[in-house]
């Protein structure tokens, strides 16, 4: 899929809020990823990911399993240097300085990075020391994060004996203990029951105001309910980067288009189109404020493009995500057929 979308001016360190795009109160960029590419052998796991995140923003990283979400989060957390590109945390380049930028990052991997033989309290004290919190402030920081993550009842229990939900809370607590500027959560709702899922979502939502949060998920509903900015990744490529408000505006109309000979045309340039994405050759999804099929048809004609089909879509992001899933399913069934032959 080819991504065409709204992008922040990457060279700006001060920019308007992602959700409003107004110039009311300038905010400082907390994280700036530029042209991130990761190569595993000959396969590109990530290809040219670029985005900027501001303090107070919650970025939802959406993608199917294997799209490259976890790899991107490893790069953003400082655990894996990219083959190309830079990650700027505040004023520091992440891979040119080991300590300073990492002090501003809180990273909770998809599988809780805990020591099962330790007690919750003891583990958090160890992490506080590793995060270079001042010796006198450690107890206070641990108490605060235990209260914030509702771990008070289990603070003296061995982590290995806790439920998955509580282990995930401990995982988030260790990422929060030093009040990081950038919080990176890799599928924090993995393996949780519905009640735990709601609790974790509430927790993440309450954290969002204090720092820039990157939150990966393969669940659209989760991103919709927590985030204000969304990036959609498919096979390592960024196919969408937009404020969620822009995509879910009630006045927006979305359409699936089938075009003849669209090779050298970008529908993003059409007047009234807020976002456009080419899902496969000749297939497009477009969204825009008060966009009507007749108007769309007329605009396409004026650019010598012919639409063979224009179908209204309920929700742009949902339609885009469904398209991704369908394409992935088709590819995998082709592969299965080829393998059984």
């Amino acid at each position, binding site marked *: 899929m080819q991504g065409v979308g709204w992008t922040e001016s990457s060279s700006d360190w001060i920019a308007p809020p992602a959700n409003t795009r107004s110039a009311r109160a300038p905010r400082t960029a907390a994280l700036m990823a530029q042209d991130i590419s990761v190569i595993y052998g000959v396969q590109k796991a990530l290809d040219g990911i670029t985005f900027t995140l501001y303090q107070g923003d919650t970025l939802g990283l959406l993608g199917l399993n294997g799209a490259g979400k976890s790899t991107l989060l490893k790069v953003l957390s400082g655990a*894996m240097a990219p083959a190309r590109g830079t990650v700027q945390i505040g004023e520091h380049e992440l891979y040119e300085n080991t300590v300073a930028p990492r002090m501003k990052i809180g*990273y909770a991997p998809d599988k809780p990075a805990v020591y099962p033989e*330790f007690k919750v309290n003891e583990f958090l004290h160890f992490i506080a020391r*590793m995060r270079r919190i001042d010796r006198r402030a450690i107890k206070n920081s641990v108490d605060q994060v235990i209260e914030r993550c509702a771990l008070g009842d289990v603070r003296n229990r061995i982590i290995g004996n806790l439920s998955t939900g509580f282990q995930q809370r401990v995982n988030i607590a260790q990422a929060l203990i030093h009040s990081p500027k950038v919080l990176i959560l890799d599928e924090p709702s993995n393996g949780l029951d519905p009640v735990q899922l709601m609790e974790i979502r509430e927790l993440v939502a309450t954290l969002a105001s204090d720092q820039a949060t990157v939150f990966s998920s393969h669940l659209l509903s989760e991103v919709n309910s927590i985030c204000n900015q969304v990036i959609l990744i498919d096979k390592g490529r960024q196919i969408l980067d937009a404020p969620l408000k822009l995509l879910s505006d009630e006045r927006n109309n979305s359409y699936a288009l089938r075009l003849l000979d669209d090779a050298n045309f970008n529908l993003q340039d059409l007047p009234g189109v807020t976002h456009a994405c080419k899902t496969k050759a000749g297939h497009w999804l477009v969204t825009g404020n008060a966009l009507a099929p007749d108007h769309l048809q007329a605009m396409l004609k004026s650019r010598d493009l012919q639409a063979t089909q224009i179908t209204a879509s309920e929700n742009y992001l949902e339609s885009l995500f469904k398209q991704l899933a369908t394409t992935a399913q088709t590819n995998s069934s082709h592969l299965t057929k080829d393998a059984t032959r």
Partner: protein
Amino acid sequence: MITQITLHELKLLVRSPFAWLAAGLLQLIFGWLFLSAVERYIQQQAMSVVPAGGLSNHLIVNFLAPVSIVFIVATPLLCMHLIAGDKQANRFNFLLSLPVTASQLVLGKFLGAMVFQCVVLAIGAVLLTILSFSTKLDTAHLLTAATGLVLFISTGSALTLFYSSLSNRSVLAAFLSFATLVMLWMAAATSANGLLQFLSPSAHLHSFMQGLLDTRDIAYFLALTSILLTLGIWRLDAQRTRSRSV
């Protein structure tokens, strides 16, 4: 920071049933070796054969020297988890995301394992202390041999840590380390000259067991341990600093 990581590694070892089992088994082996050595000395004395070098030398040959062979097995087993264990438990990427340098991580883990093994060795040495109350022992000779043992263990630990940084499986790291140490020990035992003999930690332990503090042997152990630790640090830094291709 290194102290924090060292203490953490020690705590992990103290809470590991496997480490307790290994430590218990080592004490049993030490006890058996010690009693056999003392019994043999008493038998020789009864036959009016006085071993050359007296009791201290006899204990070094029949107790401390075999202990070094025991550590060829024990060190890989006790150190195999140092980095590979974190990889297996999905904690490795998390550790790399912490504001800690690769050298702090490697040195902290290495020192944690070293302290644990030295404590196990020190408990074994209690037997010698008890014996020293009833007979006169050559303390300087025994301490020199013990120093050699500690240096030998440090090289084995650094080697296992390096293999642990290369592998995702603890058992593989232990096997590679064990195989390397056995090969080098055999090179020393067969008294073959050449590179293997020069590289063999067992060959360089010999002078310590004879009560000699040879600076060349000390330099060998320190240099080899430093090289192996540096390789481990490079391995960890590689993921953080350069293009990753698997």
